[in-house]
């Protein structure tokens, strides 16, 4: 009441400001006359309260259960006792601190609210959304051709995986068969991207363990791969190279040599990292037995990727539900045993070795042929034809302005990104733009494991546990 009464007074006394600038931009202001049945009454009141972590005395037992890892409601009926950490807990002795969103070890703009007793983590709550840019909404405004420029910015450490999953979904709706060479080019790029993403993780994880040399080494090797990407796609990141209907271009001349040099350089250096980290007592003590997860917990929380494999579940979509030509190459699925940070480290290290193995097979098996599907509906004409043919020019113009139409339907496609199951749920209403595009980001789901992994550990280990989840905030917030 008092607020309502004060409001006009404040306006009268305030100096005159340009009202256009003061207009909120939440969207409702600029709505076109709304379609059927869309009165504001439909929009639910948004008074759901704060998303933050509250002191223990203000928190219900159900809430504590959820924060401490909802997983503990396992099928076996294990119910978590909120006080089972062996520490006297009162609100006087515990304290809630904020880590992030600008903390360097949160790998982006992740904010963790942590309840501490001394140095022991009692509760954690990840708060996300600081990088939310509404990319799923944006996707509804872009044609399928433009879509890959949008999704490539989600998981910015493995952009090619994002482009691949969108392209596979669109092609599944179109029902087109891809030429063999385009599949193999995609596989090559995606595996190199997996290497660069894992190398980047090795670098940042090393830094979280206070190994700055690993930081420099990881970036050095990643740069080699990014240089190859730049040569092939024109850009180091956010390539827009894998598109619905194939790839943007063929591989450059001499790509076999470039790729072989990358493999020959990175492979022996992985042994150096093995020596630098694996054999190092400090590193082992800080990673073994830290951030433990069990297989039941991982499955219940829908964790995928190295997090799931570290618990001993041999689940890799490349092997279990092969896409592209993964059933024609040999590789091993790396599986851990204990579900701790050290397992996740070893899995990622060895996955780089497996990716090198796959890349070498791709160099041998790369077939000749077309790098994009020869379907006039989807594929623009070659650049050379545009100069000599009016029809080709119109065709090119139509593909890039209006886009191509995709038959009505819905599809869910998932691939194995470096972080886990990257899924794309695509709904088409028959127009050139997706009716709905949803990306199932592995980091978004995997972040749910953090409260569980950090629980009862030390604050210094929380940093390492966060790192071993390998969240990419661009994908979490989308």
């Amino acid at each position, binding site marked *: 009441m008092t607020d309502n009464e004060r409001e006009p007074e404040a306006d009268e006394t305030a100096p005159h400001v340009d009202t256009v600038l003061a207009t909120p931009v939440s969207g*409702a*202001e600029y709505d076109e006359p*709304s379609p059927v049945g869309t009165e504001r009454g439909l929009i*639910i009141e948004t008074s759901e309260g704060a998303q933050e972590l509250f002191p223990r005395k203000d928190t219900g037992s159900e809430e504590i259960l959820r924060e401490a890892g909802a997983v503990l409601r396992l099928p076996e009926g294990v119910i978590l006792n909120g006080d089972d950490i062996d520490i006297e807990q009162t609100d006087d002795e515990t304290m809630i601190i904020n880590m992030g969103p600008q903390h360097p070890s949160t790998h982006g703009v992740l904010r963790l609210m942590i309840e501490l007793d001394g140095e022991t983590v009692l509760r954690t709550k990840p708060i996300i959304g600081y990088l939310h840019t509404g990319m799923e909404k944006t996707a509804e405004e872009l044609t399928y051709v433009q879509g890959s420029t949008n999704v490539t910015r989600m998981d910015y450490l493995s952009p090619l995986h994002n482009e691949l999953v969108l392209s596979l979904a669109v092609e599944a709706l179109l029902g087109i068969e891809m030429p063999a060479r385009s599949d193999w080019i995609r596989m090559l790029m995606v595996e190199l991207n997996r290497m660069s993403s894992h190398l980047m993780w090795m670098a940042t994880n090393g830094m979280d363990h206070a190994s700055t040399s690993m930081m420099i080494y990881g970036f050095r090797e990643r740069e080699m791969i990014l240089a190859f990407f730049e040569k092939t796609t024109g850009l180091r990141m956010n390539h827009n190279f894998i598109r619905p209907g194939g790839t943007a271009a063929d591989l450059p001349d001499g790509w076999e040599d470039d790729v072989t040099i990358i493999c020959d350089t990175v492979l022996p250096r992985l042994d150096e990292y093995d020596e630098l980290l694996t054999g190092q007592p400090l590193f082992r003590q800080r990673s073994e037995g830290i951030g433990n997860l069990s297989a039941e917990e991982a499955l219940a929380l829908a964790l995928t990727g190295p997090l799931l494999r570290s618990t001993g579940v041999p689940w890799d979509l490349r092997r279990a*539900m092969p896409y592209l030509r993964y059933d024609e190459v040999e590789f091993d699925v790396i599986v851990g045993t204990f579900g701790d940070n050290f397992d996740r480290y070893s899995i990622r290290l060895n996955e780089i070795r497996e990716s090198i193995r796959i890349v070498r097979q791709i160099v041998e098996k790369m077939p000749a042929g077309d790098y994009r599907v020869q379907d006039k509906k989807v594929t623009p004409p070659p650049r050379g034809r545009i100069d000599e043919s009016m029809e080709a020019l119109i065709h090119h113009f139509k593909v890039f302005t209006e886009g191509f139409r995709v038959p*009505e339907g819905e599809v*869910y496609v998932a691939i194995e990104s470096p972080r886990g199951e990257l899924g794309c749920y695509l709904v088409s209403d028959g127009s050139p733009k997706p009716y709905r595009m949803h990306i199932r980001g592995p980091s978004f*789901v995997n972040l749910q494991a953090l409260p569980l992994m950090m629980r009862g550990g030390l604050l210094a280990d929380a940093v390492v546990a966060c790192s071993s989840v390998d969240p990419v905030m661009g994908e979490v917030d989308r």
Partner: protein
Amino acid sequence: MTTTVEGEPNSDAPAPGAAGGSSARRRLGVAPEVLFVTREQYVSVIGGLRDDGFEMCADLCGVDYLTHPGRTLPDGVAPERFEVVVNLLSLSQSRRVRIRVQIPAEDAVLDTLFALYPGTEAMEREVYDLFGVVFTGHPDMTRILLPEEWEGHPLRKDYGIGRVPVQFKGAPGPR
């Protein structure tokens, strides 16, 4: 009234003679079973599927069909404005199943899957945040991506995109 649809409406598209590709696509999970359930059956059907070996709820998302009312649905399923789509994954059988639930606009409420699959906690919060579908029984039905004082649910089709007024002299107002 559970309606099962084997394959996609347009899954007859792959050309004959390309068996390798189409079988790969089938394995990809592109042509899985799609189940249409009512809101009352939702939790019990998914609970039954979990007991049948679908260990993981891979994905849960919402769709707003406001501007696409005439979509293809099997007989006996009345289209509603919202749809929640759940993708279950069976690791032991390498199989996916997709469950689609119709949710009317005037009563956008659905039971939570939290007790069955705790991993849906963040996904349901995301659907609530962006579509305004309330999941009853969820322990923490708050916004997850947007700030808590945000008005409206942006992925709804009637939510305007909005433009930022540009601060130039004589600039036209928002179009």
